[in-house]
């Protein structure tokens, strides 16, 4: 280096730069490491579930398990009733819960006076924090007896009870995410609609909700994930009979309930069959995420 330039004041920054580079590298590695925790966890979980579940598929056959209607371990491992129960209870929860949630989100974002929104919003957030076992209590004490009275049936532990409890459980997720995405819209959409003489409600349904739909889809899919993965509350209110349900007023057992109830004592091929139940569950979640990606992708083109 030119000797005229090597003064103290010039050397100092160089040292500092080196130190800064070093810190940059450390932080890069730190960020990378943290990001890897999530990826590794997913990979490990998937690997284990598949590793443990495959023997059951090999021994009993994929179609025996997926389409079989009898669950009699260690002889028969048909989980079709559980698949149906999981899908029906989740679908029912979405049909009931999502419209309520979206209307609530619209109310909070657009219509409610401030004081009322400040009352409803914390209540909704509290709902998100309630442990699922407490939802189970609520279902047992209120929903189940109500169904018995309304439909004149001896036992209210039914798919319908599960649907209602799940519908309430997914509310906070869908509400919060939908409200956030409605609030994130530029005010120009609303102003443009109103300036054309459209009513507030018309603007909400024709402009604001469609404009916020990718956020709303995300909320719904998180809600679906919560509903299909819910275990504790479902075990408490749905009756858990591992038979193909004939109607919403019959008990049923979901995929998650099947695993949770039998894992503690299952051994050998029976345990493996429970893991294969888990595989089916994972596949559903992956399909759900894929369809969300697809919807958002289609939207952005």
């Amino acid at each position, binding site marked *: 280096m030119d000797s005229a330039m090597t003064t103290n004041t010039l050397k100092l920054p160089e040292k500092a730069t080196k130190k800064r580079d070093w810190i940059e590298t450390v932080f890069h590695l730190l960020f990378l490491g943290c990001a890897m925790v999530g990826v590794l966890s997913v990979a490990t979980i998937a690997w284990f579930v598949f590793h443990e579940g495959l023997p059951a598929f090999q021994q009993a056959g994929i179609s025996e398990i997926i389409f079989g209607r009898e669950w009699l371990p260690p002889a028969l491992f048909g989980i079709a009733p559980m698949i149906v129960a999981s899908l029906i209870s989740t679908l029912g929860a979405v049909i009931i819960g999502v419209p309520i949630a979206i209307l609530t989100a619209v109310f909070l974002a657009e219509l409610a006076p401030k004081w009322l929104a400040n009352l409803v919003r914390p209540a909704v957030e509290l709902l998100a924090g309630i442990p699922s076992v407490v939802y189970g209590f609520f279902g047992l004490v209120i929903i189940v007896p109500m169904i018995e009275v309304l439909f004149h049936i001896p036992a209210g532990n039914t798919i319908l009870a599960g649907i209602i409890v799940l519908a309430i459980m997914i509310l906070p997720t869908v509400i919060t995410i939908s409200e956030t995405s409605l609030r994130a819209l530029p005010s120009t959409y609303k102003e443009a609609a109103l300036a*054309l*003489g*459209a*009513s507030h409600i018309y603007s909400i349904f*024709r402009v604001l909700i469609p404009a916020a739909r990718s956020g709303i889809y995300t909320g719904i899919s998180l809600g679906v994930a919560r509903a299909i993965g819910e275990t504790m509350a479902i075990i408490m209110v749905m009756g858990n009979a591992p038979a193909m349900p004939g109607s919403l007023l019959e008990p049923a057992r979901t995929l998650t309930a099947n695993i949770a109830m039998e894992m503690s004592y299952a051994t050998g091929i029976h345990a493996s069959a429970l893991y294969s139940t888990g595989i089916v569950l994972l596949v559903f979640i992956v399909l759900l995420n894929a369809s969300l990606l697809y919807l958002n992708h289609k939207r952005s083109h």
Partner: protein
Amino acid sequence: MNKLTINNLDLFYGENHALKDISLNIPNRKVTALIGPSGCGKSTLLRTLNRMNDLVENVKITGDVHFDGEDIYQQSDVKALRKRVGMVFQKANPFPMSIFENVAFGLKAQGVKSTEEIKAVVEESLRSAALWDEVKDRLDSDAFGLSGGQQQRLCIARAIAMEPEVILMDEPTSALDPIATHKIEELMDELRKKFTIVIVTHSMNQAKRIADKTAFFWMGELVEHGETDQIFNNPIDTRTQGYVSGEFG
């Protein structure tokens, strides 16, 4: 003939006295330009004319605005007013839907069902906005696929489709390049035959080119208004003189 008459209008945003005792006539089928330095209340005044300020919390308005002789702040049907007084915003703000649906939006909001009628109005509006030839083959594609200048003309078409009597424009070309700006100015020359136009602009040249009347605002006050020629060539007030000669802004 005055389309709009503003009498002793005062507007407060909370404590902020944004418009001070404004009295101004807006002549029918003429272009009136509102000019003045940033923050002087031009947009605020524009937004009192279609009551968009109703959306802002804590706004207090005194005085009156007459539209064809009727006090718009006494009449309760804001939607009917906004149908007759259209608005074009500073930044083009098409809805996230197709070109066709954007122009059809206002009609559908009014409950017009007939597809034939809607189609006809959409085409006519796009023609009036000098956009038809550029988009006629892709009416069903997303409005965001248009260029900035095209989007702004789409917003003008959307406003025209309601057959308003007045069109309010808040710096409609400030986000556009000179060529797109020129197109919109040409368009306004056509539109003035049918509509009353009130335009906010920061460009003196634009005001000189397109406006019949010009009003100069200063810190919430209407300093001076009159024929555009007079405001630019023979301003009476020294503040107007300073502003139009570009001494300050």
